[in-house]
Each structure stands twice: as structure tokens, then as C-alpha cells.
């Protein structure tokens, strides 16, 4: 059985208006029906762009946000329905490491006080001396000197502060740590130190992680299973290596192709899938598939009308896309892609429809090309006049 299981979790924030009577005029659908399970000892990576609801989901597991609907089953108990005091006690086993290491540490408390507060609240250690011993042990584990105890958060560098945040979670001996963007505020060299530290303590203490991050490379590095989120729902879930080798959802494909790789050989030769436009507002999500407004593989049927469910394609690969198999088999091409010499796959109705769609698309593109040409001409007029304008100040410079 999984250690942590989410079943149809929804977190909706009401949007209120009015001066005297707060009328609820709508909802922000931050998390909209997510089901996933995390095995003990595993690292589950949640990845997505800002505004996709990944942080809200992480906070919802700890009930730092109210859960609108759904169950969070942790070790057999449903956290969503627990009374507040029971939930508080459960938090000893479920800890969180926050994104902003300075903002999440009280500037007026010294490190000993920060680290022992949680222990006292959960009744760990009979007295402060015992707690201090335990804290010293953990500090050594996260690579901080013992003389840190009497110091204050501002005396530490960013990387050291994040280590304090990790130590604060560790002193309670939790089973699960939810890491919300644990390294995004840090420089790359420090990032690597903290990532290695997280892996070391996982091995030595048998922890289960849920790592929330926007950086796909970081998530892939540390996770066993990755869930990709888009606008409040999970669009794809797979074991780390499988997701990288065969991304099936169009959004995952685009996300992967957009992550820069520090290698010019790779960068020059890889195919980029550029998405158009921005993330739609979670207060007014698109109908059907949430991604259809930006999807390069969008089809005329289903995409705009029916919301795709997560389908299991085997090997723990779950994808929420109506046309995932067709895209994987190369039967659908994305708009703007060059037409291959031989068309793969047998022609089918969808295929013909797709061809029609493609033809329209091509015509549209030609139109666009003409437009761009005009635009470029216009653009050149700009720089042309700019150049003459640029030449004028030149004598002034000499003068």
C-alpha cells in the first residue's frame, strides 16, 4: 500500500466581491481533481510552471490550505477529514521545507530556538538538554557547525539557511518531507550541495519525499516518479527515466524541449516545440482539455469539449490526452511541423481529417508568412529611419 495517496483532491479558492456582504462571484480552480500515490522511500517530483497549482497541492497535503474536496490518505488515515488537533499531531510525521529560506525562518529566533520549538510542541525530548543533543546530531548531518545553535538566521548564507530549514524538518523524525522549491533560490554550485544533501539523508534516514519544483532538470535528477501539472491537474505521470525517454503529453514534450541543456551540441541539434501564448487564468480555465488553447497537436474533435482523464498506458505511465497514442505512433503531426516524405501509419478517418486540418493550417501559414514579410519590411523601415537617426548624432559625438 502506498504511504501517501491523494484521491481526487480539489482546492478551490473563492473570489469575493462586495463591501458589506461578501458575494462569491467565482472560484480560482488552483487544484482541480488530482489523484496520485507516493510509495514509502520514494521521491515523487511534481513539476509545472508558475500558477499550475503545485505549491497549493503540497500545502493541501499538510492542510495548510483547506481542501475543498477529495481525500489525502496518509498511512491509512484520511487527513482531509481529521479534526484540527489530530492533524497537528500528524504533522510530526509530515514535514515541509519551504522555498524561501529567509522568509520561513523567524529573524528574531536563534537556531536552537527555531529547531527545538517543533520538538517541544510534539513532545520529543524530556528537556532542553536532551533536545539540544538531538539538534546537534541533526546539524552535523546537514553539514552545519554546532556553534550555529546560538546564531540567528541572518548570519547564514542562503545555502546554509536552506540547510537549517531541512534540519527543522528532520528533528521531528518525519516519514514524509514535502520540499517546495528547495533549491530555486540558490546559486547553482550551492544548489548541487543541497540536492546531494537531500539524497544523502534520504538514504540514511529512509525518508519519503514529495519534491515540488519548476525546474524539470532538478526534478528529474532527484525523483523516482514525476507528475507533470498544468493548470490544476495532472497531465502526465511516469517513472523519471521513462518520462524523459518518452514524454507522451504534448505539454510535457514542449516543457522538455524548452529546458536549456548546458551543452552546445545538444542545444544546436534539438527540436524545439515553442508554445504560443501564456498560461490561461485558473479562475476561468478553458473547456475540455485545459491545454488545448496552446497545444500544437490540437484536434477538432474532443479536445475543446471533453476533459481527458488520466489513462494508464502501462509501465506506470499515465497520460491525460485524448490523442496520446496517436501522437506517440506518429499518426498526428503538430501544426507547423515539416511534412515527412512518407506518411507513417495507415490512413484513417482521423488521419484524413488531420490532413485537411493540416492543409488549412498550411494556407494559414502562408498567409502568415506574407504578413510577416510585410511586417519585416515595415520593421526594416523602422531600423532604416533609426539608422539615419543613428548617423545624425555621430558628428555631434566628434564635436
Amino acid at each position, binding site marked *: 500500500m502506498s504511504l501517501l495517496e491523494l484521491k481526487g483532491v480539489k482546492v478551490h479558492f473563492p473570489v469575493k466581491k462586495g463591501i458589506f456582504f461578501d458575494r462569491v462571484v467565482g472560484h480560482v480552480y488552483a487544484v482541480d481533481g488530482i489523484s496520485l500515490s507516493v510509495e514509502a522511500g520514494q521521491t515523487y517530483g511534481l513539476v509545472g510552471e508558475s500558477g499550475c497549482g503545485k505549491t497549493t497541492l503540497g500545502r493541501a497535503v499538510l492542510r495548510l490550505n483547506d481542501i475543498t474536496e477529495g481525500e489525502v490518505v496518509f498511512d491509512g488515515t484520511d487527513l482531509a477529514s481529521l479534526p484540527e488537533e489530530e492533524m497537528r499531531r500528524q504533522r510530526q510525521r509530515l514535514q515541509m521545507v519551504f522555498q524561501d529560506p529567509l522568509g520561513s525562518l523567524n529573524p528574531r529566533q536563534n537556531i536552537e530556538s527555531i529547531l527545538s520549538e517543533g520538538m517541544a510542541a510534539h513532545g520529543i525530548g524530556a528537556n532542553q538538554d536532551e533536545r539540544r543533543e538531538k539538534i546537534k546530531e541533526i546539524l552535523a548531518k546537514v553539514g552545519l557547525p554546532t556553534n550555529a545553535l546560538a546564531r540567528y538566521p541572518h548570519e547564514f548564507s542562503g545555502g546554509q539557511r536552506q540547510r537549517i530549514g531541512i534540519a527543522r524538518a528532520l528533528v521531528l523524525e518525519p516519514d514524509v518531507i514535502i520540499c517546495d522549491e528547495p533549491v530555486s533560490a540558490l546559486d*547553482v554550485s550551492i544548489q548541487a550541495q543541497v540536492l546531494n544533501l537531500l539524497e544523502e539523508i534520504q538514504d540514511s534516514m529512509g525518508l519519503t519525499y514529495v519534491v515540488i519544483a519548476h525546474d524539470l532538470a532538478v526534478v528529474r535528477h532527484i525523483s523516482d516518479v514525476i507528475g507533470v501539472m498544468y493548470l490544476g491537474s495532472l497531465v502526465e505521470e511516469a517513472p523519471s527515466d521513462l518520462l524523459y525517454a518518452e514524454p507522451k503529453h504534448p505539454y510535457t514534450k*514542449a516543457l522538455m524541449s524548452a529546458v536549456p541543456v548546458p551543452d*552546445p551540441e545538444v542545444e544546436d541539434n534539438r527540436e*524545439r516545440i*515553442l508554445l504560443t501564448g501564456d498560461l490561461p487564468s485558473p479562475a476561468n480555465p478553458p473547456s475540455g482539455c485545459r491545454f488545448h488553447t496552446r497545444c500544437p497537436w490540437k484536434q477538432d474533435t474532443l479536445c475543446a469539449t471533453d476533459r481527458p482523464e488520466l489513462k494508464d498506458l502501462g509501465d506506470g505511465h499515465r497520460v491525460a490526452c485524448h490523442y496520446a497514442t496517436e501522437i506517440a505512433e506518429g499518426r498526428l503531426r503538430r501544426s507547423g511541423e515539416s511534412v515527412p516524405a512518407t506518411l507513417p501509419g495507415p490512413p484513417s478517418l482521423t488521419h484524413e481529417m488531420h490532413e485537411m486540418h493540416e492543409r488549412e493550417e498550411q494556407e494559414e501559414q502562408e498567409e502568415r508568412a506574407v504578413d510577416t514579410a510585410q511586417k519585416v519590411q515595415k520593421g526594416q523601415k523602422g531600423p532604416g529611419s533609426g539608422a539615419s537617426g543613428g548617423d545624425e548624432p555621430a558628428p555631434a559625438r566628434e564635436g
Partner: protein
Amino acid sequence: MALLSVDELSITFTRRGQRDAKAVSGVSFDIDPGQVVGLVGESGCGKSVTSLALMGLLPDKGVRIGGTADYDGTDLLSLSKNRMRDMRGTQLAMIFQDPLSSLNPVVPIGVQVTEILKRHRGMKGEAARKEAADLLDRVGIPDPTRRLKEYPHQLSGGMRQRALIAMAVACAPRMLIADEPTTALDVTIQAQILELLKELVDQEGTGLLMITHDLGVVAGLCDKVNVLYAGRVVESAERRPLFAAPTHPYSHGLLGSIPRLDAPRGEKLNPIRGSINDNIEWADGCAFAPRCDYYTMECLTGTPQLTEPLTAGHQVRCVNPVVEGSTPNDDGDAGRAESAGEDAVGDARDGKSADIEKADTTEASS
């Protein structure tokens, strides 16, 4: 001929009663038309300060700037304020990191874009508005006439950055400085913006100085790369040789600490140890020595010079560069502190470890 040629740029912040802080020293690089030159480094290495100095945006008091920045026969660093104002926009323009705080929140986008057209190109009224709409259209903002009337908060992050780029290219400058233009953006939006910058450089032959901490962005965009550490260029090379064989231990370490998307799961990262607070003064030796895996006693005999140890055009500031076959001297921190007990590193280390108090806030805020 180079469009912009920076020679021995040094920037020192001074404050009465305190020691001078050398932010940048001896930085030199050239940018040709249509070339993208990268300045890479972690927070606090002096990359942003360099760009501000070139744009003449540093305050008059409390800063000492040395060296020259030759742009088309003019030294940018010695220009008067008024002359610099004429240069900005028409000759050089800058794209800032944070698009929200670089736009005026209470002025519509349209006014902010036309302001530049009015100031530098003498355009007025309807003509300026039309040109502004064309500019927004060129950088890929849909429905530009409506967007012109909107305020910055009504635009998304990517759109704001596009508006900033539109403002920067409004007068077709020959030189663009982009200071972390995509750091605040999501990866899919980052890919869009980088594509746009590439187009601008290719079509207009603009020179681009790209300042970033992201080696992935550099790998895809820059022609030449300068790696900065503690205010000095430690390695300078064409893009491909640099990534194929990073020769300075710092560049080597940086590349080793980045989790790569295409690396197999479970591959260990090789972080650079310590933090930027562990540096020693360049005057005493190599500033990177206390964090370096390849450090020898030779590293403490004064400032190392930029040399070309392997191939022409690949400059490295290191006496003991990483070449094929060299191994890190992994004697651990304790051994190192002992062996270096009497010299500068030992002193600097003791001094530093005694004042974590001064753990600088710049790194924290990064």
C-alpha cells in the same frame, strides 16, 4: 571591427570609514555586430554591475570606475551625462531582469513606449502611437492597439518582458545589453523570449551582451562566453570549446553541479564546495583557491594572469588548469587547512569562518 570593446574595466565601491569593495577588476571583452557575448557567473560575481557601468547607470558618488569601453570611437565610461542620455536608446539599450519593477506601474504601456520614440526619434501623436503598436506586434504581443492602453499589471510576465524588449529595440540600437532577461520567466516563456532575441540579432545585426547565471541559456545562445568569478574573468572562450573542455576549475565545477535533463537518474552531482564567502583577495592569489579541487601552493603567489594554455582564443586565469588527466587533490578540508596553516589561505579561512556574521545579504537575496 568590434562594436564595443571593453578594456580593463574595474569598478570599486567606496564608502567613508570602510574598506573599498572591488566589484569588478580587469574585465575585458569585445562584441562584434551580430554577435552574442555571454557574461556568466553566480550572484555577486559582478556581472550586473558591469552592465550598469556600460550603460552609465551607476551613481556618481561612491563608485570609482576605471578602464575604457570603446563604442565606435567613443569611450562610454567618460561621456557626460547628457551625451550618455543620447546614446542610450539609439545606440545602446538594456533589457532588465525584472519586467514588473522596470516598468512604471501607473503609466500605460503605450505611453512608456511612445516616450522613447518621442525623445529619440522626434515622433509625435498618432505616428508615435502607430509605431509603438508596430513595435509590440514585432515582439509578438497579440492585439497591440489594445495592449497599448493597458497598465503593466494587466500583462503577464512574458508579455511584460516582450514590452521591455520592444522598448529596448524602439530606436534600433546597435548594441543590446540583456541582464538576466529570462530569469523571472517560466521555461516555455523563456524559450519564446530567447527565440525572439536570436531573431533580433540575426535580422538586425545587433550586438548582444547576455548576462546570465544559466549555463543552459548560454549554451544555446552565445557565440563567446566569459565566466566571471569574484569580479574577474576566469575563463573566456568560444561557446563550443568552453563546454567541451571547461579548463578553469570553477567553470569545470559549475558544469558539474548542474543537474542535466539528459543525464541518467541517480548520477551524482559534483558541487563546488564552500560558498562565495570563502574567497580570498585576488591580490593574495587566486580568489577561488579555497574552494578549488585542484589547488596547489602555487595558487597563492599573486593574482594569476589570463593565459591561453591550450588553444588560441581560449583564455584561462589559472596556474593549474583542468586538462585531460588532471585529478583533483582530494586531501579534504582538514589536511588543506593544515598544509596551508601559515599562509594566506589559512588566514583568510580562519578570518572568514570567524565571521559568518558577515554572511553577505546579497547572496541571500538572490
